[in-house]
């Protein structure tokens, strides 16, 4: 086992008598006190419910499903996400799409957030870029049933609702 020597600079006389260094330390803490009280950006914490911590652009929160310009979901019920999902929390029921250009659409699209591990594999797997991860992370709920998100929960809000 190699010995690692840490260089500690020797204290000079003024540091060794301690009292002046103590007052310097008091000055440092007082500076932080004044700055925390008066300068908005100095505080290191967030007062959570009112003040939300900014999340990274790639943050993986609750899922969302994009809409086409006409308001219908982009999803074509290809089951890629359901296949890719490691904890198998996605359940899709497909049906025929009325649009002749599109083959299928989801009749129901259910994500069980109790099982979801927020890995983002479904987003990777989606060929249509329909599913994505929102930045919403306040997902607490009272029952397991409420944590099963349906297509309506997942779809982006319509333009007029925004």
């Amino acid at each position, binding site marked *: 086992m190699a010995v690692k020597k840490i260089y500690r600079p020797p204290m000079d006389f003024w540091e060794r008598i301690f009292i002046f260094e*103590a007052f310097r*330390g*008091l000055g440092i803490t007082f500076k932080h*006190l004044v*700055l*925390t009280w008066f300068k908005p950006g*100095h505080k290191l*914490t967030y007062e959570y419910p*009112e003040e939300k911590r900014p999340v990274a652009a790639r943050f993986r929160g609750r899922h969302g499903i994009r809409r086409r310009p006409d308001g219908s979901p982009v999803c074509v019920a290809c089951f890629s996400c359901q296949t890719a999902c490691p904890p198998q929390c996605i359940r899709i029921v497909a049906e025929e799409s009325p649009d002749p250009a599109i083959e299928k659409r989801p009749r129901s699209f259910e994500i069980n957030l109790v099982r979801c591990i927020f890995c983002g594999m479904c987003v990777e797997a989606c060929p249509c870029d329909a599913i994505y991860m929102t930045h919403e992370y306040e997902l607490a709920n009272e029952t397991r049933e409420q944590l099963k998100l349906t297509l309506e929960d997942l779809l982006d809000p319509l333009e007029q609702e925004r």
Partner: protein
Amino acid sequence: MPAWLQTVLTSNVTWAVAALAVAYLLTLGGIPIYTWWERRGAGLIQRRPGPNRRGPYGLIQPIADAVKLAVKEDVVPEGAHGLFHALAPMLVMTVALTTFAVIPWSGNVSLFGKSFRLQVADLNFGLIYILAISSIGVYGVALAGWASNNKYSLLGGLRSAAQMISYEVAMGLAVACMFLVFQTVKLDQMIDAQVGPLWHWGVFKAPLAFLIFVAAAYAETNRVPFDLPEAESEIVAGYHTEYSSLRFGLFYMGEYVHMAITAAVTVIVFFGGWRLPWVTTVGRYGSLLPWFLFLISIVSVIVAWDTMRPARRAVTKGNILFALILAATALVSIGLGLFLLVSHVPPWAVSLSAVVSQLLVFLVKFIVLFWMFIWIRWTMPRMRYDQLMRLGWKVLLPIGLANLALTSVAVLLGWI
């Protein structure tokens, strides 16, 4: 003025009760404020807000804490000595409270031919009484450590006993130096000795004794950097590991009361007590009161404005109430101050306003000294046990002895 009011004002009982009221306000009444203050100060120093949810500025928080402490289960560990386990926190708290009896909150004022002072007990060995009584507090701590049947408690109690005894020596030397400087042991006479210009204050007459006294006082109150008896990283919580509910609360409150008494004694011995520099006569203190009242109203208005400023959270009813109380305080102080300024004030009212303004001066100094406790706590790291003992016996004791010798020479030669 009616005769009954004169009887009341010139009764010794009234003055004793008033002094008691001040003492209780600063100890039991002050503890919620002190704990809130400590936590807010800690928060701001550590770049976080501290408790700011319950009530304006989080001022209701300590009441919630007190309720929590009171309704918790009072656990007595198996094998603990029941009597001593119960006695220890009482001893700590009682001793800390008792010391407040001799603090003079104001100077002598004459009222209808009699002389009065806001002081509960005018003992002729004032400061020695405080030293003697507060040393009994170590029994409480040591007893708590021993009676808990817990090795961490025992270690904490032993450390506390060793530490308090070691630092009592240094403290005694610093206080003896001040006895020499002031030629008295009575607290009110010490304050009288500091009359006149600023450099007559004890801290300028004997700065070294001040530093020794403060270091020893911090060790006596078990505060950082000398809080080894309750070092949480080493011995859990030291002597109060096995205490819960209000018994723990007594220890906790006893610590704050002890801090308050230390701050009060420091104000009296080193910072001129209720005296302002250069202000000598009672009449001058009386005429200063309107200006103090105007200062109070300005501060209240600023705080009230800050309370009503919608920051991140909406302004609640509590905030509005708090701001209204502050606004009322400001109005009353301005009105009273203007009244005192413009009207012809009879001599008894001058005496009473002198008492109030002296009390206010004392309180401001007290607040500064108390803040030093909090400030130092969140600045300094805790000392190691050997460092503590080295500081006590090999640094403070020799310096204190040398200081005592030098001071006595200086006093003999008439330099101080």
